[in-house]
């Protein structure tokens, strides 16, 4: 049997109307400005940067309103497996290659993005972002500033689209508003403003929610020193950073599951939930993928813990080596290259259109692994299965970005308690029979198993 979608009756009969065309035009203009700058065509940044960003934002808003508000509220997944974008078609590949390329440039070839080195001023794309960077930090844009701005734009504009798509579901609306605000303020505006106010002090990470081990350099000597020398604010960040992963995270995860972080505040999660929504169905649901996932993600966690132990050892003993090996060359650099850049960035986002939106969160994030251990063994969170109502249709598994085969549990009447579940709630939203509910409750009966369908009293008599 062929594994293709069966569709031959034209699935794209929906015509694009005039307003939609205008909106797409706006988005194209915005992207074109970015592309032209990248190609080093000189544009007046003070005019063209706001023009680019606002036309992308506005275009997305108009387009989303147009496509979703003319339909009744409800699940809007029609044709996801027919469209090129969401089913690994040509558009998907083009976007994937572009994104991957962009990440490669940011991490390893920022000069191609126009970053001025050795005192030269910015050119190209970086120069386009200079006015905004001067506004916040009083200095030219770095590639990370360009990246952070575009990242935030993606989450806010596509977050708006997501809210309209799920406007019948208050869990989704509230969660998405929180994840958008969290990116906009905690990850972008507040750190940029603080950076500007403290431009005389050395850099340290100022996104209060980006904790170790996701932020893997938190305990590096230079970072600890910069925080210690960063005045009161630096000390606050140091203490908070440790408390956050050591105390706050276990406690909150106990009460509500790791979703509070992964799908409510995290930046990686925020992008996956909004920009990545078109790709959630692409994650592999195979048992073999699950097995691979467990090795990978716990392997990365172990790597992060070992690396941090080494750098802390260095810090307190004032050394730079461990067991005779240079910590930077042998541990920090490989981690930064393999995990920090290649995995979380290039593969994690660049491969969205191929592997789904949560590749990093599922296979690589050491913080997700850490919280997953609590979620699996000591938490009140579970997805409750509604008795015998499951019809094994598979919508839940299909929509699970973490590749959890939700149906495998639901059809047995079992609750879903999985380390990897990020609590996005989409499985529950798309279930046509109202079978799934994310909830926090008594640890007793959290993992139930009903070998016999509720509603069938036959076998209970005997077994």
């Amino acid at each position, binding site marked *: *049997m062929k*594994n*293709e*979608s*069966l*569709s*031959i*009756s*034209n*699935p794209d*009969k*929906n015509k694009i109307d005039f307003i939609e065309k205008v909106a797409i035009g706006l988005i194209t203009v915005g992207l074109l400005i970015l592309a032209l700058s990248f190609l080093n065509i000189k544009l007046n940044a003070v005019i063209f940067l706001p023009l680019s960003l606002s036309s992308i934002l506005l275009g997305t808003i108009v387009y989303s309103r147009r496509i979703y508000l003319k339909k*009744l*509220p*409800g*699940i809007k*997944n*029609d*044709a*996801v*497996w027919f*469209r090129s974008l969401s089913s690994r078609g040509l558009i998907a590949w083009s976007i994937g290659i572009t994104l991957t390329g962009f990440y490669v440039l940011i991490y390893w070839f920022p000069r191609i993005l126009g970053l001025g080195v050795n005192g030269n001023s910015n050119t190209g794309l970086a120069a386009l972002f200079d006015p905004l960077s001067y506004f916040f930090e009083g200095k030219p844009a770095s590639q990370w500033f360009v990246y952070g701005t575009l990242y935030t734009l993606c989450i806010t504009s596509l977050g708006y689209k997501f809210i309209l798509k799920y406007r*019948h*579901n*208050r*869990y989704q609306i509230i969660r998405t508003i929180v994840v958008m605000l969290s990116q906009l303020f905690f990850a972008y505006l507040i750190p940029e403003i603080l950076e500007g106010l403290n431009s005389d002090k050395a850099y340290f990470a100022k996104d209060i929610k980006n904790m170790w081990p996701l932020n893997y350099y938190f305990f590096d000597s230079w970072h600890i020193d910069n925080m210690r020398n960063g005045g009161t604010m630096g000390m606050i960040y140091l203490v908070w950073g440790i408390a956050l992963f050591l105390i706050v995270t276990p406690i909150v995860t106990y009460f509500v599951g790791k979703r509070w972080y992964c799908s409510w505040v995290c930046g990686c999660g925020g992008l996956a939930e909004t920009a990545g929504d078109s790709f959630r*169905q692409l994650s592999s649901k195979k048992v073999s993928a699950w097995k691979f996932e467990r090795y990978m993600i716990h392997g990365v966690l172990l790597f992060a813990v070992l690396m941090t132990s080494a750098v802390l050892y260095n810090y307190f003993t004032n050394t730079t080596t461990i067991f005779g090996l240079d910590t930077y060359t042998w541990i920090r650099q490989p981690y930064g290259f393999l995990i920090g850049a290649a995995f979380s960035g290039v593969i994690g986002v660049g491969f969205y259109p191929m592997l789904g939106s949560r590749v990093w969160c599922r296979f690589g994030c050491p913080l997700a692994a850490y919280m997953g251990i609590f979620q699996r063994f000591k938490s009140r969170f579970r997805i*409750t299965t*509604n*008795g*015998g*109502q499951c*019809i*094994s*249709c*598979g*919508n839940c*598994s*299909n929509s699970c970005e973490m590749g959890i085969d939700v149906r*495998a549990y639901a*059809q047995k009447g079992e609750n879903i308690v999985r380390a990897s579940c990020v609590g996005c*709630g989409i499985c*529950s*939203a*798309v279930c*046509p*029979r*109202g079978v799934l*509910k994310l*909830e926090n409750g008594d640890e007793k009966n959290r993992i139930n198993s009903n070998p016999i*369908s*509720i*509603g*069938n*009293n*036959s*076998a209970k*008599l*005997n*077994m």
Partner: protein
Amino acid sequence: MTTINRLLRECKSSASKHVVIIGNGISGITCARNVRKNSTACITVISSETDHHFSRTALMYIYIGHMRFQDTKPYEDSFWVKNKIDILNRFVSKVNTDEKMLTFSNGESLTYDVLVIATGSKSNKFGWPGQDLHGVQGLYSYQDLQLMEQNTKDVNHAVVVGGGLIGVEMAEMLKSRNIGVSFLVREQHFWDAVLPMEEAVLIERHILEHNINLRLGTELKEIISDERGKVKSIITSKGESIKCEFVGLTVGVSPNILFLKDSGINTDRGVVVNEFFETNIEDVFAIGDCAQFEKSINGRRQLEQVWYTGKMHGETLAHSISGVKTAYNPGHWFNSAKFFDIEYQTYGNVPTNYSEQLASFYWEHPTKKICLRIAYNKQTNILIGVNAFGIRLRHQIIDKWLSEERTIDYVIENLAGANFDPEFFIKYENDIADSYKFRKQKSILSN
């Protein structure tokens, strides 16, 4: 793929009995899995539809593009190998119960020790003129879905005949491809054999909102062909003609048992069985859509063509086959469906008409498409059933209340505990309780 020779060799040589199941739908597969859990029997599952079990209830989602066919398979293909359940893609054309042998349409044959008939249903056709034209079809099997892809290519307008659950699904499918739909429903109100009037009207409003041309109280009279043998229009019982290039016939299903005609196995509408799923012939059983109980069990219908029932049949019969003879003892009825965007759940018995003894309390949201009906016994006030539209309810809790024979007052008071809507959803229990109290005071509760 399993070959007959290998099967015969292995199953003959093994000491355990050979359980052969015809049909890899939910009932056959549930039976096979549960027999495997509890015994070492040699198990073969035969189907001519697809190699592997898939979820029939998900057919519509393949067409509307939520999923691909492989996403509707509840188990990975390797599952069957790992669990030593042999699968065989053959059509059984004859059953010889004397020799305990099946004959396939390709001439091969296979012997069994225990035979389970789980062959499901087929779509009804009522002998309308033109019902076999090109572009006219039912929707039951994977092949029907493939045909529907062919038949709806370049179609502008379609007619769906029959206002049941599959009819609504078909209308939604066609709509997803921007095909106009006229929906003929014989009854005066949508699905009014099952839904009380208020619920039916609510769904009708919603169907109309989706720009479906809903024709209540209208039957199909004739399907008209163009010069190439393809449908070009239909004529309704009211004499109207509707131009269309596709006609979906969704006027119910009946057991798929034609191949048993000369087998000596006792059939009526379905294969006749007792509470142990035993047919008139030893070692031959029937479950799922195709099984018909000789008499009603626990007040349930003799033929129950739904997913959950097939699952329960499969579970129960598996115990008997594995050596623990078990009678079928279904609990409280439940079912669910989705009408475009409105989810529906039902528990227990919610009559469409209310007599001297039975009454119901109905609440509907003033603007949204959300409603709840609680049916109860007028004398005792005991709960007998619940219909919920747009509100999810906890199966376990309602099932418990039905068993514990709770009163309607108790149900209203504790309704919040039965709510299963996602977190942060607006809750209506207070509105419902207020409305209930108000009507109770004015004693205008009934119906």
